[in-house]
C-alpha cells in the first residue's frame, strides 16, 4: 500500500494535525509519503520529514499553492494521487475544502471524518451529529479520506525521510485569494489544547469572556464557545465547538453557560473529563458531565479563578 498524506500548514510551520493524519496512515499500513504544497515551505518540509513512519516528503513550492486554493490544490493532489492506494488529509477546513474536489477528479468517493481504521479498506465514521457510528468499506481504487484528528494520537518525530522537490504547478486560473482576518491568540489552539473552557449564551456578552480567559491562562487552556455565543457576536467564529464547528477531545472540557444541544455535544462529548457549570439543573449538558456544578457562572467563575 502507498499512502499520500497532505500536510496541514500555514507555509511557516507544520500543524500538529499532520502528526495525527500520519498516525491514521500508520494504522492503515504501507509506505507513507507526505505532500507539502505551499510557498516557501522549506522548513515545513524538513519538519514533515521527521514524522515517524514517513519515508518521503514531496514539496510543491509554488505561488499557486500559497493560499491553499482548492481549485489548484485539488488538481495537484488528483495528479499525484492517482498513483497511491490512499489519500489522507485532516478534516480541517483546508482538507474539507480541496479533498472532495480531488476525489471527484479521480471519480472516486470520499470517506469523511474517519475515527478509526478497521482494515485498509474499512473505517468508522460518525454521522447524524455523532449519534451514530457507521462502519464503511470502500471498493474505490484510490481511497480518499479525511481524518478526524481528535480521534488519533500524535506520531513521534524520529524519522529522516527523503525530501524531494516536484515542479507540478497547477494554476486553474479561476479563483484568487483576496484577504484574510485570522484570529491571533497566545492560547493553545482548540485542536491541540489539553484543557478547553467554553462559554455559551449564558456569558451574556463578549466582555464577560475575559473571566474565562483568566481561568484559561491559569490552566494553560484554550477558549471555545457554543454557536449561540458566536451568533450573538460575543466571540469569533473560529471558537465554535460542535457538529459544524471544531471537534475537540481534550483531557478536560469545561462548559460554562452552555445548555448542551446535540450539535454542541457532537463537538466535545469525546473529551476525557467534562465539567458543566450551569444555573439550570435541568440543562442537558449535566447528563454527559462527569462533574456538574449548579451555580450562577458570575459567582462560580470568579471564585474558580481565584482559587486555582
Amino acid at each position: 500500500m502507498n499512502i499520500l498524506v497532505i500536510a496541514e500548514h500555514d507555509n511557516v510551520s507544520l500543524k500538529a494535525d499532520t502528526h495525527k493524519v500520519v498516525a491514521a496512515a500508520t494504522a492503515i499500513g504501507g509506505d507513507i509519503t507526505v505532500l507539502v504544497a505551499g510557498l516557501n515551505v522549506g522548513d515545513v518540509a524538513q519538519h514533515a520529514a521527521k514524522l515517524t513512519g514517513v519515508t518521503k516528503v514531496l514539496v510543491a513550492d509554488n505561488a499557486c499553492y500559497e493560499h491553499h486554493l482548492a481549485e489548484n490544490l485539488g488538481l495537484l493532489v488528483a495528479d499525484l494521487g492517482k498513483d497511491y492506494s490512499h489519500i489522507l488529509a485532516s478534516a480541517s477546513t483546508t482538507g474539507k475544502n480541496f479533498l472532495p474536489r480531488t476525489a471527484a477528479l479521480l471519480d472516486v468517493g470520499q470517506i469523511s471524518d474517519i475515527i478509526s481504521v478497521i482494515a485498509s479498506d474499512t473505517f468508522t465514521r460518525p454521522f447524524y451529529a455523532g449519534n451514530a457510528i457507521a462502519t464503511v468499506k470502500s471498493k474505490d481504487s484510490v481511497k480518499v479520506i479525511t481524518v478526524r484528528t481528535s480521534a488519533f494520537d500524535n506520531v513521534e518525530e524520529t524519522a529522516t525521510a527523503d525530501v524531494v522537490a516536484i515542479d507540478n504547478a497547477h494554476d486553474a486560473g479561476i479563483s484568487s485569494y483576496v484577504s484574510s482576518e485570522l484570529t491571533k491568540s497566545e492560547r493553545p489552539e482548540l485542536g491541540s489544547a489539553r484543557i478547553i473552557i467554553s462559554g455559551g449564551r449564558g456569558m451574556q456578552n463578549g466582555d464577560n469572556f475575559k473571566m474565562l480567559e483568566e481561568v484559561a491562562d491559569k490552566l494553560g487552556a484554550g477558549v471555545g464557545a457554543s454557536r449561540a455565543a458566536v451568533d450573538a457576536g460575543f466571540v469569533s467564529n473560529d471558537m465554535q465547538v460542535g457538529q459544524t464547528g471544531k471537534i475537540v477531545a481534550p483531557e478536560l472540557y469545561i462548559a460554562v453557560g452552555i445548555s448542551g444541544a446535540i450539535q454542541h455535544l457532537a463537538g466535545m462529548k469525546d473529551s476525557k473529563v467534562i465539567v458543566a457549570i450551569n444555573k439550570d439543573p435541568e440543562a442537558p449538558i449535566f447528563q454527559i458531565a462527569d462533574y456538574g456544578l449548579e451555580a450562577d457562572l458570575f459567582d462560580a467563575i470568579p471564585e474558580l479563578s481565584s482559587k486555582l
Partner: protein
Amino acid sequence: MKILVPIKRVVDYNVKVRVKSDNTDVDLSNLKMSINPFCEIAVEEAVRLKEAGIASEVIVVSIGEKACQEQIRTALALGADRGIQIETSEKVQPLTVAKLLHKVVEQEQPQIVLLGKQTIDGDNNQTGQMLAALAGMPQGTFASEVKVDGDKVHVTREVDGGLVTVALSLPAVVTTDLRLNEPRYASLPNIMKAKRKPIVVTTPEELGVDVSSNIEVLKVESPASRSAGIMVASVDELIDKLRNEAKVI
C-alpha cells in the same frame, strides 16, 4: 442570472436519532423531516440575490423519494421560482449527487450554484466541492458573506483560523455556513402561491447517471455512552475532584 439551489430532505435538527436494533441504519420512522438547515440558508441567500435584482430566477433541485417534494414546496414558499425533483429511492452518495447535479447544471446553465456546506444526516461536507470539480467551476465553501461583483463573486469563508475571502470567476459554486443569513419564515399567502409553482420530476436514468456506489455501509452502531457523573456542591469540591480524583489539573 439563474441560481440553482440543491436542497436535501433530512431529519429535523431538533431530533436525536436512534440506531435500529439490527444495526443496519438509524431509525427514521415517524420522525419530523425538514430542509437541511444549511440548504435553507442557501435558499434564503438565493432569494435575497433575486430581491436585490442580481438574480433573475431561483431553481431548487432535490434528489430523493417523492416525499422530498414537500421540501421543494417549502423552498418555493420561501421565494424560489420552480423546482426539480430527481426521483430515486437509493441512498445516493455525494459523488452521485454531484454527478446528477452536474447534469442539471449542464441543462440550466446557472451562474451560481448555492449548496449547504453539509447535510446534518450524512455529515459529509463533499457535494458542493465535487460538483465544482466536475463542472470545472471555482468554489467558495463555508460562506459567511457572498457579494456578486461583475463577472466575479467574492466569498468570505469561515475557516479554522478565522475568515478568508476569495474571488471566483462566474459561474461558481458556493456552499453556505450558518452565519450567512437567517432564513425567513414562509408567509401564508406565499405558501398558497407556492402550490401553483411548477415542479418537474426526472430520474437518474433519464439523466444517464448510474446511482450505485463503491462505498458500502457494513453496520451502524450507537456511540459509546458516557457513564453518569456526579453533581458537586461547590467550587472547592470541583477543584478537589479535578485535582485528586480526575487528576486533570
